[in-house]
């Protein structure tokens, strides 16, 4: 295999430049078709009836009045689905129990969270469908809701699932049923002796709220079940193949009967991996024989899709006076929502990942509660666990009178270091990020003014590999359509096309990337896990290498020489041996492209890759805040994000990922929360009261891309998208402490929480 990894970025022609994204014009003119923009002849509109209760048994559902309403074509409940068995299906980055997937899509015997789908209607238009929902009569037997992760873990707590037992990693199960679905543990060294060595030991407890991905586009799904038994689905999803492989078993169809077309997607951040509406639309279409479009409104998105876990966490950390961390004990209890499957595993693996700590124990608990089933959200599990550990590390530095950045450098993992879970690092940019932060104008500057403070934090996240597929055809004019299976959620058409262009030696503009349906490209995993530019780019690279090889062969045919004597250069010149007259023979890419049709036909390159996860990413963030001590409000004054991107393919979109991650992390730090009342009613299910940052809440976000190429990728790419959401919360916490001397132990660190921590009791 030819690898280009040894190249310096400046040697690249396309990589590292900032071309206009290929789908850009459509997206600034309103032409781009997102899922909800689809309009098919004869299409019906669907709406979903949702539970007003957090925990209840469904006694009966009477849909007769709704069915009788003029314009209503079908009403369905869970009972209308084929019975889902106790089997595991592929849900993208893991597997899930099919019955739980179906029960989350539409409740069977119990509703487990407010907003849990109970029934669905297809009608002539959405106004009628909404009217029909009001006519569906559901009788509930109310049960006590379980809303707090610690309450849920207590023996005797009301149970969400009678048959759920705590699974240990060794496969054993608890004797008694429990809301704790699983327990995992990683250890390293000897914790007791590690703490005995420490001069200072700190222990802190943290609570964090559920938080939502907050993509601006609500979920949608359109289905058309045809008379021949084939099912078409159009949806805004991060993984078209995941939708296919979830819907097919739920409707007891073969994957070959299901074609999923990924529409443009208005953000996902992990939340648009699971299916919600697609199976319902499919069944409604099956019942009516007409296309059915379902869309969620914002309240439904917040109530009933998958936020990230709320948590209770406890961290004990010990260090010597010189700053050497000797031991860390981390306890993580994560809310999974209504069904098992919180990201506590990844949270546990990330918790201490940047640091080489000889003695560690990390315990993780996956706990069901009467809240929506959590889904992946940008570096799932890590913003929580690293908030806890980074916060304690910052406090240790403060306690020891050490520079928190220096202390991180002192304990930083480098190549060869091993985490408690057993991973051993290859080439990583942990230290490089810290050093770049140390040298940054921001860190070097002096912060002045009352109630102002500065904080720093580090972040770690993986880089998931897995399957990606691509093919590309060489047109006669030298342009190359590139066909991809990866939904483009933030510019990956461009970043993948650029890697194809680089490999072929042509311009990014000569490559025309297209995202297609599941029948039109090979299996491709979700756009998520920081994998798309990494794995999709790898597929594009191999696809281009396939084209290079075929073009060498074609040139050999034309020149009537041995293909081994033809070389395709990185300058896109195809060179052959001298002809009989001793003249050099060569083609430019375009010249040879022009001769393909007459010399044997077009060339199609293809690649299917299945890669390991090998390019973990680190980030260092610095933030300055000002706190209004009278109101508890925190303003972000200045922010610098440093991150190792391996190689920044399209630096503008790398910066964009960093800035977007910071914005989400700041939101999680300051205001975003799932605010439940004691009955389990989510009281802030709107974008008014679920307070994501506005343009007025953030400054410009300075970015500093460090490039420590990933030796496991032809262009050195590392995952970029996820790690920048991790450091903001602990960095902001440290800055608040630096400003007003108060350490916050909860997320969000809202004005209310800060006032609660600072007002004299009795005020």
């Amino acid at each position: 295999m030819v690898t280009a990894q040894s190249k310096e970025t400046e040697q690249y022609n396309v990589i590292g430049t900032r071309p206009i994204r290929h789908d850009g014009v459509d997206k600034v003119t309103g032409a781009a078709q997102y899922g909800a923009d689809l309009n098919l002849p004869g299409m019906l509109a669907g709406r979903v009836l949702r539970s007003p209760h957090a925990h209840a048994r469904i006694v009966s559902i009477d849909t007769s009045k709704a069915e009788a309403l003029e314009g209503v074509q079908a009403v369905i409940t869970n009972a209308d689905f084929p019975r889902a068995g106790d089997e595991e299906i592929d849900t993208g980055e893991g597997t899930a129990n099919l019955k739980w997937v179906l029960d989350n899509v539409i409740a069977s015997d119990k509703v487990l969270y407010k907003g849990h789908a109970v029934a669905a209607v297809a009608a002539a238009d959405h106004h009628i469908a909404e009217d029909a929902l009001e006519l569906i009569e559901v009788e509930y037997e109310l049960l006590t809701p379980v809303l707090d992760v610690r309450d849920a873990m207590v023996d005797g707590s009301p149970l969400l699932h009678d048959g759920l037992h705590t699974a240990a990693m060794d496969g054993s199960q608890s004797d008694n049923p429990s809301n704790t679905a699983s327990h995992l543990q990683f250890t390293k060294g000897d914790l007791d002796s590690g703490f005995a060595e420490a001069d200072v030991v700190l222990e802190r407890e943290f609570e964090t709220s559920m938080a939502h991905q907050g993509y601006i586009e609500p979920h949608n799904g359109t289905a058309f079940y045809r008379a021949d038994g084939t099912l078409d689905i159009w949806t805004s999803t991060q993984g078209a193949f995941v939708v296919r492989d979830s819907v097919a078993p739920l409707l007891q169809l073969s994957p070959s009967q299901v074609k999923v077309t990924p529409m443009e997607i208005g953000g996902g951040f992990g939340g648009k991996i699971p299916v919600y509406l697609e199976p319902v639309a499919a069944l409604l279409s099956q019942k009516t024989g007409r296309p059915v479009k379902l869309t969620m409104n914002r309240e439904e998105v917040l109530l009933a899709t998958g936020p990230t876990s709320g948590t209770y966490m406890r961290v004990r950390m010990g260090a010597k006076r010189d700053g050497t961390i000797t031991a860390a004990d981390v306890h993580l209890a994560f809310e999974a929502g209504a069904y098992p499957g919180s990201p506590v595993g990844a949270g546990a693996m990330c918790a201490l990942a940047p640091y080489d700590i000889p003695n560690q124990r990390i315990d993780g608990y996956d706990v069901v509660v009467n809240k929506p089933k959590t889904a992946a959200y940008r570096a799932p599990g890590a913003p929580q666990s690293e908030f806890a550990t980074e916060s304690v590390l910052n406090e240790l530095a403060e306690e020891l009178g050490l520079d928190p950045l220096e202390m991180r450098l002192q304990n930083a993992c480098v190549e060869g270091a091993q985490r408690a879970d057993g991973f051993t690092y290859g080439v990583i940019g942990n230290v490089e990020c810290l050093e770049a932060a140390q040298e940054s104008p921001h860190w070097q500057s002096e912060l002045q003014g009352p109630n102002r403070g500065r904080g720093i934090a580090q972040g770690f996240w993986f880089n998931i590999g897995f399957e990606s597929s691509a093919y590309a055809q060489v047109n006669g004019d030298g342009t190359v359509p590139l066909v991809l299976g990866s939904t483009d959620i933030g510019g990956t058409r461009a970043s993948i096309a650029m890697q194809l262009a680089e490999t072929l030696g042509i311009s990014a503009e000569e490559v025309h990337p297209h995202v297609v349906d599941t029948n039109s490209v090979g299996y491709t995993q979700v756009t998520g896990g920081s994998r798309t530019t990494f794995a999709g780019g790898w597929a594009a690279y191999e696809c281009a290498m396939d084209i290079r090889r075929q073009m060498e062969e074609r040139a050999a045919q034309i020149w009537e020489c041995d293909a081994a004597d033809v070389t395709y250069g990185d300058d896109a010149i195809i060179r052959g041996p001298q002809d009989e007259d001793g003249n050099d023979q060569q083609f430019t890419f375009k010249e040879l492209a022009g001769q393909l049709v007459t010399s044997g036909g077009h060339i199609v390159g293809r690649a299917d890759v299945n890669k390991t996860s090998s390019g973990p990413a680190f980030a260092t963030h610095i933030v300055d805040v000002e706190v209004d001590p009278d109101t508890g409000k925190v303003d972000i004054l200045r922010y610098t994000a440093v991150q190792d991107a391996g190689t920044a393919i399209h630096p503008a979109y790398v910066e964009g990922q960093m800035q977007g991650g910071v914005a989400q992390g700041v939101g999680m730090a300051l205001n975003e929360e799932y605010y439940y009342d004691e009955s389990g009613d989510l009281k802030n299910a709107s974008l008014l009261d679920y307070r994501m940052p506005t343009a007025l809440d953030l400054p410009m976000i300075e970015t500093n891309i460090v490039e420590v190429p990933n030796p496991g990728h032809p262009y050195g790419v590392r995952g970029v998208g996820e790690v920048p959401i991790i450091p903001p919360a602990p960095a902001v916490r440290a800055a608040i402490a630096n400003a007003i001397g108060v350490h916050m132990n909860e997320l969000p660190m809202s004005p209310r929480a800060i006032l609660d921590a600072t007002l004299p009791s009795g005020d």
Partner: protein
Amino acid sequence: MASEHIVVNCTINGEQQVFLANERDSLLEALRDRIGLTGAKEGCNNGNCGACCVNMDGRIVNSCLVMAAECEGSEIRTVEGLAEGDQLSPLQNAFLEQAALQCGICTPGFLVAAEALLEQNPDPSEHEIRYWLAGNLCRCTGYDKIIKAVQQAAGQSVV
């Protein structure tokens, strides 16, 4: 419960339009479902995200908070009306050059809102841009590049 249809006359992107709407339709629903202009997006349907911003009689409005029936006689401009044929507006070009969009769902609303800002205030400060656009939520970009795109379209130097 049955609802009736109404006829609405208005100007959309410079063209006279007569369309039939459900009397319950918002302007957003009329644009998307009746006229086929799907550039304006539904993000929240209650005025809190700005994805449905259109220009109505010279002011930006959340089209989800306007009844279609109210548009009788109005002049509406949507994202589809920003470019002249295949000539993008300076703002549209700036959004592309500054990489001011990732998923792109909020982009139509930002473009319509920012266009109105620059018409009224051709040389806005960063704070004025942020204030004007505070009703438009973006979850991908952290706003940095959006602000820079507006600055570029205003002819300001962008770092």
